[in-house]
């Protein structure tokens, strides 16, 4: 599987990720209801909505964990529908999990090295014989992993590399999940509540980090977030979901003041407008 080449001019006009009329229901309950969504290259889009709005399901549909009942999902013009998750990851969509699904008993650096599986190709025969090509690739994997971890400053460097992931603090686990997703060399990063469970200073830091990911890392980012500080701080565009229906889309101010959005959050307008 060849790494997707950054395509020329076409990306300017065509969105990188595109959902068209996507439906998904579980046992009669419609979770995603005729959703259209587009994310352009180098854009940060936030998805907000109350619990049960279908935000995480949206991520699951994009990354192929569930197939949509109908509709089209395209990454860079190519359909993702029906592909298994690992192939979608190779096409360039990587994600983090709301409930943190690190490989806890593996070391920090191994977590990041493991998710480079899709871009590397030495098979078991060469691994058993430990050929020079295999060892070269191993070195490259390690170097790339260190590079991804370096993105987070001192926090995941040095002695931490060889510690098991379970020894990390909560905030660092979130960082490691992002690093792990970055290691699949994605075109679009799907971050599921990256600031959940963080204290204010850590939240601030993650807001900056997401900006840095786009600016320095060149990633396109789709993010689910509850913390409106974060949403305000990072979003180029905000999409609000309720019961699987897109109820608002636009700039943060426009969406946050949208009456339907306010209503969806059960009248707790204070939470939305700070």
């Amino acid at each position, binding site marked *: 599987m060849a790494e997707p080449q950054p395509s020329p001019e076409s990306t300017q006009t065509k969105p990188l990720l595109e959902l068209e009329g996507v439906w998904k229901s*579980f046992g009669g309950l419609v979770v995603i209801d005729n959703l259209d969504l587009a994310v352009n290259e180098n854009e940060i889009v936030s998805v907000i909505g109350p619990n049960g709005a279908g935000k*995480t399901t949206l991520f699951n549909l994009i990354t192929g*964990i569930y197939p949509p009942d109908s509709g089209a999902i395209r990454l860079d013009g190519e359909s993702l529908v029906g592909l298994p998750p690992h192939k979608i990851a190779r096409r360039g969509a990587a994600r983090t999990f*709301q*409930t943190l699904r690190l490989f806890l008993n593996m070391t920090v650096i191994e977590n990041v090295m493991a998710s480079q599986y899709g871009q590397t190709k030495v098979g078991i025969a060469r691994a058993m014989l430990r050929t020079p090509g295999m060892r070269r690739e191993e070195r490259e994997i390690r170097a790339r992993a260190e590079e991804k971890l370096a993105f987070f400053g001192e926090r995941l460097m040095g002695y931490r590399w060889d510690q098991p992931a379970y020894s990390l603090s909560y905030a660092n686990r979130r960082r490691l999940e992002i690093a792990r997703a970055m290691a699949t060399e994605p075109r679009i990063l799907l971050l599921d509540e990256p600031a959940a469970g963080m204290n204010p200073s850590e939240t601030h830091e993650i807001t900056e980090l997401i900006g840095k990911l786009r600016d320095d890392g060149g990633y396109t980012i789709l993010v689910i977030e509850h913390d409106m500080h974060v949403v305000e701080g990072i979003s180029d565009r905000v999409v609000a979901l309720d019961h699987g229906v897109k109820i608002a889309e636009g700039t943060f101010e426009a969406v946050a003041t949208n009456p339907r959005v306010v209503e969806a959050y059960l009248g707790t307008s204070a939470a939305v407008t700070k």
Partner: protein
Amino acid sequence: MHLLLFNIIDQIRSLGWGGAFELLRNGIVLGSLYSLIALGYTMIYGILKLLNFAHGDVYMVGAFLGFGVLTAFGGALNPGIGLVPLIIIMFAVAMLGSGVLGVGIERFAYRPLRNAPRIAPLIAALGVSFFLENSAQLMTNGFQYNYDAFQLGGKNGNFGPLFDPVFTVAGNPVTVVQVLVVGSAVTLMAALIFLVSRTRLGKAMRATAFDQEAASMMGIDTDRVISSTFFIASVLAGAAGVMYGLYIGTTFYFMGFLAGLKAFTAAVVGGIGSIVGAMVAGVLVGLIESYAIGYVGGQWSDIVVFGILILFMIVRPTGLFGAQAIQKV
């Protein structure tokens, strides 16, 4: 292969309707024993997510306890008390004894492993199974012990009242002991369903099975609930052991293994964790086995049973009554 198929059709034709009924009867009787054991597997799995490999051996111990009572009262050929009280005492002792054994196993082999990786209690269960089976061999010298149930209550070594026909279908008798086995199995299962769905303990069991941590936070003494589950499961196995002794007439230290495997199969086919599933699938396994022996031949019966089950598991991995779990992400 072609020849085999031909033989099967030939055999079906030669046995006729009478034979078909007989196989049905045998399958149901055997199947209700499998059901009782399978219930234990499924309850324990439901509450602890543990495949209790030792369960088949609890059943074996139950059969030996029943035998012990029978011997203590003078043996089947010369019992010191009447038939009905004797059978009641046999059931009572075997059920109680197996129940205590089950609680003991849980307390000393599985409870220390509550927070260990999932494979640890599995291995401990294998250890318990090894321990029980070989202890039984040590005690019995590896011999089969005869209940002589056929002669129980009979005169001069003739068949006793347990083997009198209750009714006949197309000339095929259904005996007292067969009715007794199926009847008590159904009664026990009904009691179990009542217990699980209607009583406080049942509610606590369901809550613990659903989420042990949350249940304990809600004030449920989960340790006690788990102990009770083991007790009930083992009581059922003990009862099955005595029924087997009365119906088949022998006990054997090795009997727990194969019966356990078949019952385990039934629990899985029924959808592990589902009580109704275990009951239905137990009878189903009994029927498949019975018809496979009758129509295909003894040497193929295990292949037929296990082959059907492999196919079934591949087509419907959650079993008959198991819910398809939606993966939470």
